[in-house]
Every structure is written in structure tokens, then in C-alpha cells.
């Protein structure tokens, strides 16, 4: 199967790149340092369990800003870089379709990034078990790990989609930076829901539709993961509590679906751009 051969070769190539391993291990380093530093903050929580859960959920929040950068570093050159160096010519000269190449690269780079998250959580587990943390919240940790993995893969998909959609490294870097800036920096200051509300009510003069704004805000991956974390830990990170009667698509349990949309859509867009692109 061609996809398998693309993965085999890409992983062989990537696993020898020091840069990628350094980038991939940074999350583990930061998570470890964070946990060590936070140990003496536990006394400020009402119970030890609450403190531990808050701390590990903050490892996820930390990752939500950090992992996208790492994912871009690991994946943005996967296709655009090969088009620039000409190795795409060899790859596409073999019986690989462009879809094989795109999916193969996505799986291979996702694997690298998932390893990076696994490493970070291994460090978290080790510190929780070996140092003075009072409880080990196994199921919560597992759920947080699952959510983080999904989030990470979503960003790999975004990076691969960008990489497939453009022809050069420079453009992949520029678009990647732009996307990170909009999704993860700009929206620190406001939410997508707020922007839409201003447009919706202020410019077009429609009546307020809070649920639309809420959905839009939570559709941004890093907002989505925060809401997801909140549902796992039962502790509010976003400062909002939702009545359970509101629509399903704004409930925290829906966030994994949002993240899956972020996996599929960038890949599809990237594929449609790449499918017809002239590789020369």
C-alpha cells in the first residue's frame, strides 16, 4: 500500500532530524518544570485532589498554546519543503497518488507529535508518582491526555494542509505563522464570538444570538480545548458555566467533534489545492 510506504520513508527521514526531536521534547520539558514548580502551590487549594487536578489541567492549557508551535515546526515543511527541494518529484514519480502523499505525511508527522505528547504525559505521570503530589488522578489524566492528543493532531492537520496548499517553504512558514497568530494570539484578546457579534449586531443590525457567538468562540481550537478541559476536571477555566439545556454543539462534550472538524477540513482543503498543483 502506497500510504504505508510514504509513512515508512517519511518517518525514517524525520526520526533522524535532531530539530524535530528537540522541538518534540520541549513540551515534556515545560510540563515537567511546571509540575515541579507547582508542587508548593498545592496548599492553596481546598483539597489535595483539587490541587492536583487543577495543576495537571494547567499542563493541558500550557500545551494548548505551546503544542501548535511545535506541530507547525514538525509538519509545515512536510510537503511544501519537498516541493522546494525537489524530493516531491521523486515521491510523485513513484506509484504514489497525491492523496497517498498527503495522508502518509499526515500520519507520520502526527505520530511524531503524539509521541511528543506521550513523552510529556510520561513526565507528568512520573512526577506525580515520584514526588510529593498527594493523589494520582488516573482517569482524569487519561481524559486530558486524549483531548490533548486530539488537539495536537488537529494542529498537525492544519500544518499539513498549509504545507500541501502552498509551493514554497517561505509561504508555508508565512501562512503557518499567520494562522497561529490569528487562532492563538489575536484571540487571546477577544473571542471569535465577540467579533461575530459586533458584525452581526453592530454592522448588520440583527438581534443578538448568544448561542451562535458561543459556538463560534468554542470553535476556535484553543478555546475548544479549554472548554473540553473544563468538562473533564469539573473546574472552570473559562469563567463560564453552561446550563445543560443549551444546544448540544456548545456543550463541552462536543469539543472532540470540533477538534475532529479541524483535522478533516484543513486536510481536505490542502488536498484540493495539492491535487491540481503543478509540481515543477
Amino acid at each position, binding site marked *: 500500500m502506497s500510504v504505508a510506504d510514504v509513512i515508512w*520513508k517519511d518517518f*525514517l527521514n524525520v526520526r533522524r*532530524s535532531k530539530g524535530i526531536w528537540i522541538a518534540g521534547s520541549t513540551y515534556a520539558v515545560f510540563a515537567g518544570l511546571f509540575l515541579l514548580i507547582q508542587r508548593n502551590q498545592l496548599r492553596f487549594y481546598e483539597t489535595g485532589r483539587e490541587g492536583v487536578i487543577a495543576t495537571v489541567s494547567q499542563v493541558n492549557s500550557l500545551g494548548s498554546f505551546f503544542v501548535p508551535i511545535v506541530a507547525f515546526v514538525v509538519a509545515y515543511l512536510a510537503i511544501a519543503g519537498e516541493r522546494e527541494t525537489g*524530493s516531491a518529484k521523486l515521491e510523485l514519480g513513484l*506509484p504514489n497518488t497525491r492523496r497517498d502523499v498527503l495522508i502518509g505525511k499526515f500520519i507520520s508527522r502526527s505520530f511524531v507529535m503524539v509521541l511528543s505528547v506521550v513523552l510529556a504525559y510520561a513526565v507528568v505521570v512520573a512526577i506525580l508518582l515520584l514526588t510529593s503530589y498527594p493523589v494520582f488522578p488516573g482517569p482524569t489524566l487519561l481524559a486530558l491526555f486524549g483531548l490533548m492528543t486530539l488537539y495536537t493532531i488537529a494542529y498537525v492537520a492544519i500544518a499539513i494542509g498549509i504545507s500541501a496548499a502552498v509551493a514554497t517553504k517561505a509561504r508555508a512558514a508565512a501562512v503557518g505563522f499567520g494562522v497561529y497568530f490569528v487562532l492563538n494570539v489575536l484571540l487571546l484578546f477577544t473571542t471569535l464570538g465577540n467579533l461575530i457579534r459586533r458584525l452581526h449586531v453592530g454592522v448588520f443590525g440583527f438581534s443578538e444570538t448568544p448561542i451562535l457567538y458561543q459556538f463560534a468562540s468554542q470553535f476556535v481550537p484553543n478555546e475548544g480545548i479549554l472548554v473540553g478541559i473544563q468538562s473533564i476536571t469539573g473546574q472552570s477555566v473559562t469563567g463560564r458555566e453552561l446550563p445543560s439545556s443549551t444546544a448540544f454543539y456548545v456543550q463541552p462534550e462536543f469539543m472532540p467533534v470540533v477538534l475532529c472538524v479541524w483535522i478533516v477540513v484543513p486536510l481536505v482543503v490542502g488536498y484540493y489545492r495539492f491535487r491540481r498543483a503543478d*509540481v515543477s
Partner: protein
Amino acid sequence: MLEIRKYFMRGNKYKRVTDIDLNGLRKEFGNGVVAVDDLSFSIGSGEIFGFLGPNGAGKSTTIDILLGYVAPTAGHATVLGQDVCDNFAPTRNRIGILPEGYGLYDRLTAREHVEWVVRTKDAADDPNTILERVGIADAADRRVGGFSKGMSQRLAFGMALVGDPDLLLLDEPSSGLDPTGIQEMRKTIRELADDGTTVFFSSHVLSEVEAVCDRVGIMSEGRLVALDEIDALRDQIGGSARLTLSLESPPRSLELERLRGVRTVAIDGDTVSVDCRSGAEKVDVIKHVDDRAAITDIVSEEPSMEDLFNRYTEGTHSETDRQILEVPQ
């Protein structure tokens, strides 16, 4: 234009007739540059086809279309019976390619590169055999990041040989190779062709095409300006097949002008220069002179591919963008 006559029987692998068929092919890039314009020709099975043209003539774009890297703006390209725009990937199992401007993976070894191609093509080749064939077996386990241009080119050629392809598409295959490398590659290409492989070979190095190919197409500014066997093209030029004979003593009367195919005769002391219409008349001239005088030396000059080439590409080139052609060594 269908040149299948003698090539028809040569291939012994499959019953194929036409391996490459281009029909009204046109490629216009987004910036309005027309790289290929109304290109039509066919290549028969087992043929070694030389694709000539100065840099920028549209050769690489044509090859990019043949490999499915670039979609044509208009026209059709069929390779091994399959339209290149329609589910072409499986057909590439039967094609070996050496594209221009390819890049190898710096962090993979030579053996891993070949292994990758073997896996992807589901071929049965032993990477070692391939690497031996292209003369880099001793560097099999080195990462190619440190390879010279020549070694990279050998490796890329080796990768093209994996799976015993029916069609080899080689774009400027000798670039970066030393003379020994070029010789070896030529030998390999001939062996493969004798075995029925069709070889499509592009170059701007004329001597190379002359040494290897059965038939050539010459491209200039996106169009095919000539398509024929090399000898036939040479015959068309005529006039410039020159024979210079040194004699023991100045001749008295040679009456060479009476011979068929002789254009001009110049006698300067004991040296006789004869311009023939084609190479075939030269033997007659030598026999004729040998009967009448003692020949001490013979110098024969064929019209070079360069003459041929210039003649076909000159007319279409404006003065400003005339390309500098690499002169055969």
C-alpha cells in the same frame, strides 16, 4: 509522424506499439508564459528517443507533463496507454524516472533510497544489485547529504532502474556525471533498450544524444522543430560532410567533380578537400583518389549535431534570448 516501423519488433517484453503519445499538447503557466505549444509526437516501444533543445525550450515542461507533475492546459498525453491526467499513479509502476531538479533525502542512505523505491513499486530488486549497477555500492550505507552531484545522479539513475521499467524517462541524465559515469550510463541505457525498454532521454548536450539515440526530436520555444532519425537529419543538412585527403605529391588530374554527390573540390598543394552531399559519398571519393594517387592521410568531418541543432533552432530564436549551447567535448 508515427515512427514504429523497425522498433515494432524490438521489444520482447510486451506487445506494445506506442509508449508515448502526445497530441496537441499545450502548457500555459499562470504568468502567461507558454512553455509548450501544440506539441504532437509519438514514441514507439523499444525506441531510444532523444529530446533536444536549448534550456528553456520546453523540454522539462513536456517531461513534467509526461510524469504527471504538471497538468496540460490543452491537449492529451498518453504514456503506456494511460492518460497522464487520469488515475496515472498505478502506471508509474512501469516507469523509471530521473527528473530534472529532483532532491534526495539528505538524512537517508543510498540503500534506503533504493529500498524505498523497491517497496513503493512492489519490486523484487535487491538494493545492492541496483547500487552495484550504478557504481556506488561502496557508498550504500552513507547518508546522501554528503554525496557529490555525480554520486547523487548515479543514485537517482539507480532508483529509476528499480522494477525493470518498460519506460525510462530521463531528464538531462548526464548532468553532474564525469565522463566515465556518462559512458557507464550510456552502456546501461543501451542494454536496457536491447531488452525492450523504451528510453526517453532529454538533453542539451548534443554529443550524448548522438551517441545513444535512435531518433531525435528537437524543441525550440515550445514547439517541435524537427523529428527524425539522426542520420536522416544529418542528410537533410548536406554539404558539410567534408573529406580532407593528404597525398604523397600534388595530384595532376583527379576529375573528382564528375563523381555523384561531390559539391566542391579544393586542391592546395598536396592536400585535397572535398565537400560531399552526405557521408555516403565519401567512400567513393576515397576509392577514386586512391586509384590515381597515393593517400597518406584521411580526415573526415561529419556535420556535427551542433550544426544540425543550430540550424533547427536558430530560425526561431530572437537575438536577445539566444541560449548558449554546451559544446560537445
